[in-house]
């Protein structure tokens, strides 16, 4: 390896950071290999370099290290992943080293895990509808290929179930090359096992790549895991032409690892101890999705993050939503009512829906229906909270219909089985059904044309 030299002088160790003497031979963000006296090797990366010393973060942590008795070797390159389609079907650790007992896959290229800066001019606007078979998503939060759409969740909520359902059902379009890249970031082993099993049972495992940094693995490594995973995903999407779905869970653990390092570096924090560059840092992860002009594949991201204390204004969900193209927010209240998937539709949003639906994509009435459901459900929520205060007697007769509508919306349209796969026609027809509970005078978003073409069909079918 070019420029690699052995050096052994460690000045100090603090948390997972190490200050080493370099004589100016180490570049910014370059790798070092740390060899312990017992022969164990660890990886580190420089965070700051000067003429004589450098600050290095040690991915596997610094337990057991002492300034004496370690050798530091400069690798002369940034952290890279060796890519090829041999990655498919394999399982790696959070730094991209195989942990499935099989040999290192043969790579065709070594790629910097930070990826390249995608030229916005070369992006293709994402507008191809993905049918997930989940009514509330397809009908009101439609996803398109190349979108980044996170699930905001809390403990005890079925975010894994929903992500797995999307991964299973969204990937069955015939004749197309799809792949799933799964990154576990500080989650319990059983979460990783759950996804593995789901992918295996649906036959998708051989087209999946798993990167696992589990709860017991070092926190510093979490900074790297999503980047390694996205490097694999980008390669598969833009070089090999796959439609890739990347599931990253749990991004909150990522944010916490970043805070930990920032604190050790004694940086000035912004909110709740998180570094001021949290937005920028998250953006370098989430912006790695999309489509590229002239390339076949696409990279869709479905990050999962748990909202600490169910607080959507917490810096991690907040800044995530400032970067992603919408968010799917799960609700404890609905889940406790027995509704799966328990989506708080009013707080959720898919920003790329508008160009992915409508005539020629889904159905001409899709947009109006979705607007109307949002509009009416939001009114219904007002009526519901009023009814809780003043009782049903206190609300006007005309508003009572809204209570019925809200119940039907939740229990008929939203609720479905985790293994039920509804096509878009079924979803939209269901929407007409629940909307029909309200008198037509309340349909402010529905055009006469849609009524004529679709409503009559739905009504006929119901007779």
């Amino acid at each position: 390896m070019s420029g690699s030299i052995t050096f052994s002088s460690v000045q100090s160790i603090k948390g997972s950071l190490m200050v080493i003497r370099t004589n100016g031979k180490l570049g910014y963000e370059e790798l070092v290999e740390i060899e312990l006296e017992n022969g164990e090797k660890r990886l580190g990366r420089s965070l700051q370099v000067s003429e004589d010393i450098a600050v290095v973060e040690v991915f596997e942590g610094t337990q057991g290290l002492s300034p004496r008795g370690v050798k530091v070797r400069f690798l002369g390159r940034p952290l890279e992943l060796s890519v090829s389609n041999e990655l498919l079907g394999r399982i790696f650790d959070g730094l991209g080293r195989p942990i499935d007992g099989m040999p290192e896959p043969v790579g065709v290229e070594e790629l910097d895990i930070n990826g390249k800066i995608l030229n916005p001019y070369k992006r293709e606007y994402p507008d191809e509808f993905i049918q997930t078979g989940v009514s509330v998503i397809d009908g009101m939060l439609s996803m398109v290929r190349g979108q980044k759409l996170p699930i905001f969740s809390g403990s005890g909520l079925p975010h894994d179930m929903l992500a797995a359902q999307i991964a299973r059902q969204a990937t069955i379009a015939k004749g197309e090359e799809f792949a799933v890249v799964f990154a576990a970031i500080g989650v319990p082993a059983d979460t990783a096992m759950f996804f593995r099993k789901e992918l295996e049972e649906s036959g998708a495992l051989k087209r999946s790549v798993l990167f696992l940094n589990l709860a017991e693995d070092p926190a510093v490594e979490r900074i790297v895991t999503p980047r390694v995973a996205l490097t694999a995903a980008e390669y598969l999407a833009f070089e090999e032409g796959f439609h890739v779905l990347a599931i990253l869970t749990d991004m909150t653990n990522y944010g916490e690892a970043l805070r930990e390092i920032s604190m050790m570096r004694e940086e000035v924090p912004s909110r709740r101890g998180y570094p001021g560059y949290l937005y920028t840092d998250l953006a370098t992860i989430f912006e790695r999705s999309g489509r590229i002009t002239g390339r076949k594949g696409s990279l869709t991201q479905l990050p999962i993050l748990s909202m600490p204390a169910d607080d959507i204004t917490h810096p991690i969900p907040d800044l995530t939503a400032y970067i992603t193209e919408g968010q799917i927010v799960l609700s404890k209240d609905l889940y406790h009512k027995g509704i799966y998937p328990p989506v708080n539709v009013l707080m959720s949003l898919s920003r790329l829906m508008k160009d992915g639906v409508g005539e020629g994509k889904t159905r001409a009435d899709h947009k109006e229906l979705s607007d109307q459901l949002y509009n009416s459900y939001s009114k219904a929520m007002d009526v519901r909270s009023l009814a809780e205060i003043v009782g049903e007697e206190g609300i006007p007769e005309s508003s009572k219909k809204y209570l019925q509508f809200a119940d039907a919306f939740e229990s008929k349209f939203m609720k479905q089985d985790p293994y039920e796969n509804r096509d878009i026609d079924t979803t939209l027809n269901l929407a007409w059904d629940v909307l029909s509970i309200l008198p037509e005078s309340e349909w402010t978003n529905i055009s006469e044309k849609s009524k004529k073409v679709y409503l009559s069909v739905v009504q006929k079918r119901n007779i």
Partner: protein
Amino acid sequence: MKLKVKGKITEVKGTVVKASNVSGIQMNEMVRVGELGLVGEVVRVEGDNAYVQVYEFTTGLRPGEPVEGLGSPLSVTLAPGIVGNIYDGLQRPLSNIEGYSISRGYTAEAVDVNKSWHFVPVIKPGTKVEGGEKIGYVEETELIRHFIMIPPNVKGNLTYVAPEGEYKVSDSIAEVQNGEKVSISMIQKWPVRVPRPIKRRLVATEPLITGQRIIDAFFPLAKGGSAAVPGGFGTGKTVLLHQMASWANSRVVVYVGCGERGNEMVELLKTFPKLNDPISGKPIMQKSIMIANTSNMPVAAREASIYVGITLAEYYRDMGYDSLMLADSTSRWAEALREISGRLEEIPAEEGYPSYLASRIASFYERAGYVETLSGDFGSVSIIGAVSPPGGDFTEPVTTHTLRYVKAFWLLDPNLAYSRHYPAVNWISSYSSYVEPLSDWWSLNVSTEFETLRRQALDILFKEESLRNIVRLLGPEVLPEDEKLLLEAANMLREGFLKQSAYHEVDRYTPPAVQYYLLKLILTFYERAKEKLKGGTTVEEIRSSPLYLEVIRARFNVKGKEEFDALMKKVMEF
């Protein structure tokens, strides 16, 4: 010519690099850093050392690599060929990069230097000229007649002007004699952090018509004004800014995507060639300039992109045009300031922001204005900045400082956004200081009755707000019929006027006359309904009449006087 300073890197910390042996280097001077020649700017000078903020990622950079001063501060190239382009934060065109990624150290001319333009002189040699004077023009696009001006810092005797004909931007097209001979081409360079000079500031009296009803009618912006749009994630800042870029009656639009999504820039690139300017009917691409520093691009260039944008807007103002500069989002720019400040280990003020945050925000918005240009024309720069407060908290530093310096603000309300009331501009807390100066324009150009209708409508909305507090506790049934009717009128205003879909072919742009029609329809319906109420009709009956829904849906159907008259007739007969 100043000698180029050469030194070497001694430290790399993120995108801030410390260089030694650079005595003579100046504050804000542009530098090339490392073997790759990364672009940077000097942000601190200490003895023979300097700190450089690098505008590109610094991975792999090592102590000992060279640092070279370029002798001038960060400047933009001003010349025909800018309009219709998409640039990065340093005015490097993004459209002629090979491959799909941007490699480091990339250099490119801002405009096509090989293109020939048809130059037409408007002045004869032998006259005395001063900075800003127009010497000729080229037709840059069908919408922009690009005037070639004497650079602001040049004056003297005009000894030569090229005859009408084809020239490249770097060809000499004029000469000015003032002790020494200055050769003038179609290119000017201007340092972005310095406002371009003007003759004087004037009071703005003309509205910037945006076609967005809640803005034009209730919280307007004047040409040359400044406004901010604060709002949490997903409340509609970007959509509103895109709407402004698409429909505002400005002559030139500079859209700066500052630390936001790549796909949002693609959306502009995709829609602008297809949308037609409401005044000229030509594709708005022909009046637009886009600057993209997306969130995955290096932070330091984000800070520069805002200044690059405003300088381009000022340049077109100097030709006598109305420019509109849109910045999405100024919070990302402020965060870039904070990040650089942090790396320089400056003492932070609030939330880690440097103490000069407020003054930077102030001087940015100060660059807006309706002015008399150096050549005696009238032109303007209007600025609209999105603000993205963390946690949607309007008391954070960037929002509070911005609200102090802008003269109009449209506060986006998450509750309106959650209930899909778009644009989610809160009509109780938003503000514009331009209402008064612009009211004459409405009465002269639209209707003398407009101001009255505007007040009536706002009055209904304010009354609704206080009634809602009662309703929330006791239910609407406790209200007398006339107050119930007022709630219905407010509902009609919300549904039929304040809400405006950016994606509906008719609804997305409402010319001033139609804004008046819609208000007139709703308020007349309300007057008629009040009379019917006296005659014994119930509110429930009024609400369920087909005309109620038809008036609300008028925003999708009324395009002009004809549709208005027809519907007005029905309302009068109601």
